[in-house]
């Protein structure tokens, strides 16, 4: 894991110099925006304002401690310091760095983080947001199969300086076995994100959209017990309410002192973008029907 010279990657539209090797990230070059280093991390943040079971947030800082992995701290929007536990679960470490660590780092950089996936269409980026298990990755994978390039999965970064743009995140999707099956993928050929979970990494290769794309629409997925999927376009304040249910770890932003900034960014997205509530039946039923419905909606 420790390298003599740092690894160079490009993810979340940032150049990353890292002492830790990531199996699934795109190689990069150029002047680093972010440094991932191994080093000592304190047990706690002195000035934490918000804390959860595994994290503490203070202005411009987020510390995370997961027993099987160790600790890491994200500071100043440009540094992630990792204090790995002896025999750390490296798969979990990769998931935590690509997820909460970069999520917090983007928030520190004043990038709006939606909890969702995004694809590129001819009219701009379309985001699929929603809570865990709402099918964000599955629908992105279904669009990927129809030839749409994918920008992001899990954390969808939106740059709100000037034209709203979705930033490219990572060149892979993560899919559970049931979604992989519905999409006709062979589980045996996919690598697991963690060996204990039937959650797989689907590399995107050339189907990864590596450049920022203007934001066109946000679809917020909500599981429904109805038989058919339904789209409900939202207006006015309801747009803000809906987008607020689709944020990535808002407590991080709040604790790091960028909560208000996030609210302004959400209001801006609501003002400029179409926001639609998608009521979708059970995990993988009606997937093609849902994709048809959504595609017809964003091309109209």
């Amino acid at each position, binding site marked *: 894991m420790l390298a003599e010279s740092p690894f160079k990657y490009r993810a979340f539209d940032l150049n990353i110099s890292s002492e830790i090797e990531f199996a699934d990230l795109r190689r990069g070059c150029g002047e680093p925006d972010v440094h991932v280093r191994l080093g000592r991390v304190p047990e706690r943040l002195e000035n934490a304002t918000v804390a959860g*079971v*595994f994290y503490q947030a203070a202005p411009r800082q987020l510390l995370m401690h997961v027993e099987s992995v160790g600790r890491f701290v994200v500071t100043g929007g440009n540094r992630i310091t990792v204090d790995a536990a002896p025999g750390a679960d490296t798969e979990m470490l990769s998931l935590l760095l690509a*997820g909460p660590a970069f999520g917090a780092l983007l928030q520190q950089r004043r990038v709006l983080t939606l909890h969702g996936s995004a694809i590129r269409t001819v009219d701009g980026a379309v985001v699929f947001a929603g809570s865990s298990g709402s099918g964000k990755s599955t629908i992105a994978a279904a669009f990927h199969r129809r030839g749409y390039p994918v920008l992001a999965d899990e954390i969808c970064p939106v740059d709100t300086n000037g034209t709203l743009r979705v930033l490219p995140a990572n060149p892979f999707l993560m899919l559970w076995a*049931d979604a992989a099956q519905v999409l006709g993928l062979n589980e045996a050929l996919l690598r697991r994100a963690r060996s204990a979970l039937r959650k797989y990494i689907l590399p995107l290769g050339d189907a990864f959209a590596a450049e920022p794309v203007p934001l066109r629409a946000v679809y917020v997925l909500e599981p429904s*017990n109805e038989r058919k999927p339904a789209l409900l376009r939202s207006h006015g304040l309801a747009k803000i309410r809906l987008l607020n249910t689709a944020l990535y770890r808002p407590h*991080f932003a709040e604790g790091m002192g960028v909560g208000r900034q996030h609210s302004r960014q959400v209001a801006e997205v609501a003002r400029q973008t179409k926001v639609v509530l998608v009521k979708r039946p059970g*995990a993988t039923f009606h997937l093609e029907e849902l994709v048809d419905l959504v595609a017809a909606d964003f091309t109209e």
Partner: protein
Amino acid sequence: MSRIFWLASYPKSGNTWLRVFLANLTSEGSRPVNINEMRTGGTASDRNLCDDAFGVESADMTEEEIERYRPEAYRHLTARSSEILYIKIHDAFTVASAGEPLVPPEVSAGAVYLIRNPLDVAVSFADHLGCTIEAAVEKMGSEKAALSVSRSGLKAQVKQRLLSWSSHVSSWLEQDFIPVHMTRYEDLSLRPIETFTAIARFLGLPGDSDRIRRAVDFSTFEVLREQEQAHGFRERSPKSPSFFRQGRLGVWREALTPEQTARVIDDHGPAMRRFGYLPPADRI
């Protein structure tokens, strides 16, 4: 810091009814609370509740890891809230190998435990799971029974250990970590005013008779069914055509075969006898 009152039961034992009653009791409205907009503090197994408290996706954690850290999530929840929380829970009251209960005693004010005739539970549970009564009876008899097991995909809720129906009952009623107020579903139905008043008193909620009567009237089976027919109910299982189905006592008499009835009694006789679901001798 706040504390939690747990609204605990085996599935299909009146938990939703109780929550609708509480929502109506604590609302000042002149009309029944919308069943799709009840705010009673959430569900213990809600994946979002866990993700939020953890700061790590529970989807990246194994079921064992999630189970181990769930008590922490509830501590976290009370640390962040100033109001008493009423949280629905279907998990059995389990204690981890390190001796820690799933439900942390120091943040628990107590629990209302609802119990219902397992013969009627079997009918309703089969409908909820979209399985045969045979399979529901089997599940109720299994010590390994659980809800929301993520075998190949992600469920909206995290795994909940149910144990068998009898063990579920004894896990809550025979623990001595937190105070429990036991209520029979049948008493909610037959003696609603008296029974709901006792619950309100236990939970430290207003118990004056006008308010109780209004909340009871706003939570009758007919009101709930009417609302579901008009607007649907978000907690309905996709496998079941409706959530509020019959609400009658003793539906098992028409729905269970003699063999299935015998099997339930065989599996759960002692607990059934203890709570008045079987006469002292095995006559039914």
